[in-house]
């Protein structure tokens, strides 16, 4: 079965360290989303790509977060420097947008990030 692959599954780091999360979207999907999930805020959109171009990163703290798609098979989310408030589960999702909208999203299993 095709699925979205995220690495690492768990990451524990100290405040101030750089964190890189990776995502391999489903082959053929042209939209990639990064979401953050916490108990307090639920699922929040951080960034969105269409055909590898960043279209919306308004939900991302620009001073410390960055998202890129070096190629169609890899999306990355970096946090530098990391802070304890960044502790959350980070999900990558991909979809196929034909009419301009993604009909549905396929989520990875997430990266559980703990910043001490």
């Amino acid at each position, binding site marked *: 079965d095709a699925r979205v692959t995220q690495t690492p599954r768990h990451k524990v780091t100290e405040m101030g360290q750089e964190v890189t999360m990776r995502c391999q979207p489903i082959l053929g999907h042209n939209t990639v989303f990064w979401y953050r999930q916490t108990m307090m805020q639920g*699922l929040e959109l951080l960034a969105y790509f269409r055909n590898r171009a960043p*279209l919306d990163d308004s939900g991302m703290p620009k001073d410390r977060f960055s998202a890129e798609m070096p190629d169609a098979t890899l999306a990355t989310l970096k946090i530098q420097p990391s802070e304890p408030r960044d502790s959350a589960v980070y999900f990558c*999702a991909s979809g196929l947008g034909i009419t301009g*909208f993604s009909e*549905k999203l396929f*989520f*990875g*299993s997430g990266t559980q990030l703990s910043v001490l």
Partner: protein
Amino acid sequence: EDQVTQSPEALRLQEGESSSLNCSYTVSGLRGLFWYRQDPGKGPEFLFTLYSAGEEKEKERLKATLTKKESFLHITAPKPEDSATYLCAVQARADYGQNFVFGPGTRLSVLP
């Protein structure tokens, strides 16, 4: 601003006890309403998309319905394996950023 609320926050049912979950939304022109299921330690899994008021979709023991202000997820004769968090999300017609706005979810527990 597009908003999604869900109720109840948590629901505990006995096996076979049917019930409904509610998703209320405010959106500037609905393009689609989505239901997802999320198991602990996993990402959300797609269940249904509804596009217009009056539409209904069914899958096994689940049926989703849509009105102009809310959606219901009806669970008929649930089984313990239906235990999960159910998330509702909306996508606005005018949202060229294609953001899916998610609700906080309803945590469902089905006891044997």
